[in-house]
């Protein structure tokens, strides 16, 4: 007498799972479902007993095939032939490259995803740091110094203790750059400070020529004021 519980669908579903209930590969939920059904289904219990006997006979059967050193030697001989063939087909450089590439690929595949992302972020940060630190230095080192210098740059005349200094107010409307350059050459002078808020410049000249220089400066049509700095 067969005692079945549940729908036919449930019975069929459980009946299909019996072999894997025997080999222990069902999930916990599936196994519980089978156990519940078996408690009330004689048909499935009989099927289970039969499958257990099949399984037992199947497992207990003597091994049908045995590995052996002779068999492996044959396989290894074929492997060596394969390797020898691929060696002759590849150039040494290509082989080395492929081997390294193969290792890199395998290493990359085996690395966990989180680690890959961490490494990528760290590499990017390192590259950015190198760019920020090294590139400006390279640019500075490779630049040809410009000819531009500020008024505060040290110059030979202003450094001399024997230089005299004059405070000068130029006529900005009348004095051109070329006039100024010509004047400074004439007096052997250099602008060392200025302009101040009032427009004064300080010109340093060689001390020996200070009187002659003062005279030249005072006579210049585009100089409004000359004052010797004591």
């Amino acid at each position, binding site marked *: 007498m067969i005692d079945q519980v549940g729908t036919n669908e449930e019975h069929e579903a459980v009946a299909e799972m019996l*072999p894997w209930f025997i080999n222990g590969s069902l999930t916990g939920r599936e196994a519980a479902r089978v156990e519940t059904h078996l408690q009330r289904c004689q048909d499935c219990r009989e099927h289970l007993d039969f499958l257990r006997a099949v399984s037992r006979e199947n497992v207990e059967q003597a091994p049908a095939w045995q590995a052996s050193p002779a068999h492996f030697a044959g*396989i290894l001989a074929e492997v060596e032939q*394969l390797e020898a063939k691929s060696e002759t087909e590849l150039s040494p450089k290509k082989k080395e490259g492929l081997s390294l590439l193969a290792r890199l690929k395998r290493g990359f595949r085996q690395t966990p995803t989180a680690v890959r992302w961490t490494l990528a972020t760290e590499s990017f940060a390192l590259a950015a740091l190198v760019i920020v630190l090294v590139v400006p230095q390279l640019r500075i080192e490779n630049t040809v110094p410009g000819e531009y210098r500020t008024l505060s740059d040290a110059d030979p005349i202003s450094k001399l203790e024997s230089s005299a200094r004059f405070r000068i107010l130029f006529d900005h409307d009348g004095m051109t750059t070329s006039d100024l350059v010509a004047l400074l050459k004439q007096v052997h002078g250099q602008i060392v400070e200025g302009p101040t808020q009032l427009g004064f410049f300080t010109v340093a000249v060689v001390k020996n020529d200070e009187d002659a220089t003062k005279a030249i400066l005072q006579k210049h049509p585009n100089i409004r004021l000359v004052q010797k700095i004591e």
Partner: protein
Amino acid sequence: MNPANEKRGIALIERIALKDRKAFEEFYYLFANALGGYLIKMLNHHDWADECVNDVMLTIWQSAERFDAKRGKLTTWLFGIAHNKGLKTLERVGRHAKREVPDEWVDAANKEDDNDFRETPTAKANPERELISGELGEALTWALSVLSLEHRCVIELCFKNGFSYQEIAEIMACPENTVKTRMFHARKRLAELFEQRGYSLAELTGGT
């Protein structure tokens, strides 16, 4: 499949990818018996099974670096290769495996039809009966051997090798429901064949 073998196998396959012969040899001794046993049940021919094991091992040597443990178990991958090699061998030889039973039984048993089984000749007409002892194990061995290819494979993968139905689906490249259906019909067919040989289910199950 033994989880320890799975773990050891993964360690070895990584070394095989680097062309480590020693690891390859260890791998052979770890898995070849299971692969050979499955292929012999599938092909029912020792030489063909030998050849297939060769082919599987060569494939492992050439493709070791393609195995990715994140995508599935090593043993599932291995047996998938073995199953495929077995099918190709059968295609190559042009017919199903030679058996020690009459051809008419071979044709009937290997008909690829899950829903319609033809009965094999009765036990009385079986010229092989005198060779079969009264032992239940031998009767069952015989019954297993005359099942169709797919049914033999499912039984072997489930009981001998302990694969889940999901893993068997992957190995045999078919849907999970197909695996369950094949097993269901294999069980029914086995019971029929067993009874044809004059044994009752009660004898097989020990009267439970």
